């Protein structure tokens, strides 16, 4: 900003470099160093040892100031905790919230560039279980890597607390987790009134070529259960079972959840579904009960998962949520 008073080239370059480095965080917030007050309220003593979802112990020497997120869910947790300004790199898949798109991209979700990760000098990397292969090299490079791998709502809340603790915003994380839990409890209280017999059989369509749905131990199946539905493919042993059309016709589910977005590609309209050969007699088509939900709300293990739960509960039990 003070380029005007300097005639010295070296100084100009120094300032430019400083500017580039200091705005490399991608939040809206101005990147100011934490005040003494903030340091005290965070109240956490570093070095701090935490245990991640793989049971690995990671010791952080100081409060992380430069964080790389290697998964959209991790990015969303960071923003929800107000840590967006500390993100110095994320993936091309990280598109929520809006400012996450502006962030420096270290590569794709499954195949980030190790070199770019190292080059932004992170003091904390939030990875996921898809990064098992490159975990070793990141560790060799001296990076502090926490692997987040939530497979349930409780896991998501646990991850929010874990990230909060690691990044020195434990209070905020506790608050966020409690808010989210309260909303889940709200849904639970409503759904508790629904007798077992009135819980609809739900077909969740993960993919349509071939038809695929979700098994019992997935996050989406848990959401269907909590939202007062019965997942049609709970009895499958696979996480993501491939289905024959005959099974869908035979079980005749009452509701179909149609998702779109990252995981499931382009939007398939209810009209297209109704036009599928042999499907016209299915209950959810006759009764017009196909609900379209953005797949990121149902499958990304971040705070928006509770939005997904609420949307699902409203879809399954419209009379309860008005």
């Amino acid at each position, binding site marked *: 900003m003070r380029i005007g008073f300097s005639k010295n080239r070296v100084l100009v370059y120094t300032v430019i470099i400083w500017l580039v480095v200091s705005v490399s965080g991608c939040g809206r917030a101005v990147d100011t160093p934490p005040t003494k007050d903030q340091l005290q309220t965070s109240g956490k003593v570093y070095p701090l040892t935490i245990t991640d*979802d*793989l*049971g*690995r112990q990671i010791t952080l020497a100081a409060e992380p100031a430069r964080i790389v997120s290697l998964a959209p869910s991790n990015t969303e947790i960071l923003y929800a905790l107000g840590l967006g300004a500390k993100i110095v790199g994320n993936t*091309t898949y990280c598109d929520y919230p809006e400012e996450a798109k502006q962030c420096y*991209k*270290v*590569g*794709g979700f*499954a*195949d*980030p*560039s*190790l*070199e*770019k990760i*190292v*080059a932004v*000098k992170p003091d904390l990397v939030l990875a996921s*279980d*898809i990064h*098992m*292969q*490159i*975990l*070793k*090299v990141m560790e*060799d*490079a*001296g990076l502090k890597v926490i*692997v987040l*791998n939530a497979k349930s709502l409780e896991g998501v809340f646990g991850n929010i607390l874990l990230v909060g603790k690691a990044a020195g915003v434990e209070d905020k994380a506790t608050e966020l987790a409690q808010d989210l839990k309260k909303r889940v409890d709200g849904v639970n209280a409503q759904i508790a009134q629904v007798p077992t017999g009135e819980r609809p059989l739900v077909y969740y369509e993960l993919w349509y070529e071939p038809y695929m749905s979700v*098994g019992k131990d997935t996050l989406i199946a848990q959401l269907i259960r909590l939202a007062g539905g019965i997942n049609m493919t709970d009895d499958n*042993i*696979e*996480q*993501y079972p491939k289905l024959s059309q005959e099974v869908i016709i035979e079980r005749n589910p009452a509701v179909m959840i149609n998702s779109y977005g990252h995981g499931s590609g382009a939007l398939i309209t209810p009209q297209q579904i109704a036009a599928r050969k042999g499907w016209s007699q299915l209950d959810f088509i006759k009764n017009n009960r196909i609900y379209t939900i953005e797949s990121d709300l149902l499958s990304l293990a971040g705070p928006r998962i509770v939005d997904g739960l609420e949307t699902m509960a409203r879809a399954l039990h419209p009379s309860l949520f008005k």
Partner: protein
Amino acid sequence: MGNLNTVKRAAILVLLAAILLLSVVIGIAIGAVYIPPAEIGAILLSHIPGLGEWLHPNRLPEHDIIIMTMRFPRVILAGLAGAGLALAGATFQGLFRNPMADPYIIGVSSGAALGAVVSIIIQAAWDIPMRLGIPVFAFAFAIITIVLVYNLARVGGKVPVMTLLLAGIAVNSLLSAAESLCLFFSGEQLHQIVFWLLGGFSGAGWDYVIMFLPYGIIGATIIFVYARELNALLLGEESAQHLGVEVERIKRYLLVAAALLTGACVSVSGMIAFVGLVIPHIVRMLFGSDHRILLPAVALIGAIFLLLADSVSRIIIAPSELPVGIITALVGGPFFIFLLRRQKNALF
């Protein structure tokens, strides 16, 4: 091309070695992050004991990490795997007297792939990251496969080439089926497995190089020692016997050596297509089929080819990486067709 004299042979190999060295330099020089060549030089020199003390230009510590823990071992590993696959391919082609033979022909690779898949699934199921889980499992399964195929093919004291090929194909399809079954039930690990199967060096570190080296060296040494015998085997097993070659014993050694080499390559880099099949053919077209020149040239050209292909894979869609197997097939296929059309005489 006929027989090349010793001087010419030496000249060719020196030239290839020089190209390989240049490829190593190129491989280290390029990547997703730009590092000035002068800085790379300084970084490399600073790691030579004694030199580091008085060399202190503006080296960024993160660049040091990128070069020393990522690019350098990766370039070395890509070169080693390229050499290993090409050498194994040349050996199998000579041994089977079959231009279709490649390092994967007797099922070693399917064994390794199944091992890798099993390791990925185990790691995910119990959430235990094993540092070298994939290469160790892959190599162990590869060795088990060799033993299995060899014993299936043995008739009395002999291992007829035909039986060996058939046993290999049978075991290959059995293992592939098991692997597909694992894939089908893998759920969230599917992505990781498919990535591994496509082949590549993105997880490569020095520990991979160290894992590869003993088997690589043993395998390659055995093959080089029996170059002359491989020449004799080209005339047919009976003729080789008449020339005083102990066919069964040599076959056994070469088979184990090539399989060992293949297992080591696949376990650190996944299934990389094309290198092992086509590099030997290309070298034969260039320098003839005398194994004394063929084998070292195949190793050098295989190393150069895979190393450069991996360099391209790192930068072509940076910051992401393209699996190197796609590049080897994409670049190598058309080049091979070109050579094939130009040189219309028989390959063998």
